[in-house]
């Protein structure tokens, strides 16, 4: 089953740690600098990097769900 990462934009404060750690999946917007998930359903080879990005979010704004719509 594919993995999916979701962000809570009410909680994100634009630390951009996710973008630093896994730019393949995360970027940030030009207005507030909040997370933009470029690739919500990421391939298995990126799982470790995405998990690391999630664990490094100082606000706890990211979450991994298993497949389908979050």
């Amino acid at each position, binding site marked *: 089953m594919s993995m999916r990462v979701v962000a809570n934009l009410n909680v994100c*404060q634009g*630390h*951009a740690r996710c973008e630093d750690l896994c730019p393949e999946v995360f970027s*940030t917007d*030009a207005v*507030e*600098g909040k997370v933009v998930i470029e690739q919500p359903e990421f391939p298995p080879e990126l799982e470790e990097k995405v998990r*690391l990005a999630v*664990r490094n*979010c100082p606000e706890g704004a990211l979450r991994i769900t298993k497949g389908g719509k979050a």
Partner: protein
Amino acid sequence: MTLQWQPSPPDHVPTELMIDFDFFKIPKGITDPIQIWHGLVRQGVPPIFYTPHNGGHWVFLKYDDIVEGYRNYGIFSTHQTPIPPIEPFPVVQPQGMDPPEHNVFRRVLAPMFTPLAVRRMTEGLQHRAETMISHFAEKSRCDFIDDYASKFPTSTFLELFGLAEERLQEFLDLAHIFFRSTDPTERAQNLNDIYAVLEEMFREKERSPGPDMASTIVAARDANGNPHPWEDILNCGFLLFVAGLDTVTNTMAYVWRYLAITPGARAHFRSKLDDPAAFLIAIEELMRINAVSNIFRRVTHDCEYKGIRFRKNDRVILPNTVANRDRSVFDNPHTIDLDRKVNNHVTFGVGPHRCIGSHLAKREIMISLQEWLRQIPEFELDEEQDEGSVFGGSVMGFTSLKLRW
């Protein structure tokens, strides 16, 4: 004048929570001011305690409480927070406002400090670092504070605000008095001088705007399309002047001091010069371990937090360095691990007031270190260091740091 923001006498504080601690005072023999905070933790003082010094204030020593202090603006406000308490005190924009009013100027500033915006500054920062370091690289020694760490962020400020580089010394002098003077008359005059410079700058940018931050701030309009109050514009300029200078200077001082005494760390960074992602992971660890800011909050109303009574206007200090070495959050918290995988440090705060300049600050430090190591791959502490060159307070650091190579 009626004073509105003064804390009440601490008769609501139980004796067992009263600790004798002055965060401005660095005892003789302490060469690293951060250690006064870790000394408290080692002594086993209560994780939430009150000290009568500096007008009286609480101190939080647990990661969870420090994070709560940042996030729960319903209790812990950023409005009128100085320690010791001073009135009148300027309401700096947007830092001195709680949400939702905070959003007004945060929105003005945010686009200029996003990772995207900061990436566009890279070339300018690189050029500045390269030139500044080349001025003393051949001399085999420098005072890192005077020759680099205070100059670099001030010079960056001038460029971002569209001011002439020739004004560097004037701004260095203004900043030096602001951060280091303890003379009340000199401080009052200095504040007037800074505001006079900001006034002149914003008036000039209003007349002839350029592609700089000062012009963007002065041209910004509120939700109804009206200009922002002039006082708020000045207070926003003031925030950017004071917030991005001393913090960056002293973080750099800590980083270079550590590298000067740690050959393995210099080798680690040198080996990552062509691997920016790994270089940045190591920088994050140095951000965690060298958190120089102690952040102030003011209690908004009489309440209880964690079973402890707080009174309206009580001051609270959130020492980032303590949160960053809380063993319930970090493995081997006092060990510097330049490959640390999970690093949720709070050096730039969390919540709505997360340091808006964090990406710029990190980029300034990262580029400076890259350029430094290219020109000065090996360096050490000079045997002769100035006596009494450490200081505490809201930003901790060094007035002098002599390096040689």
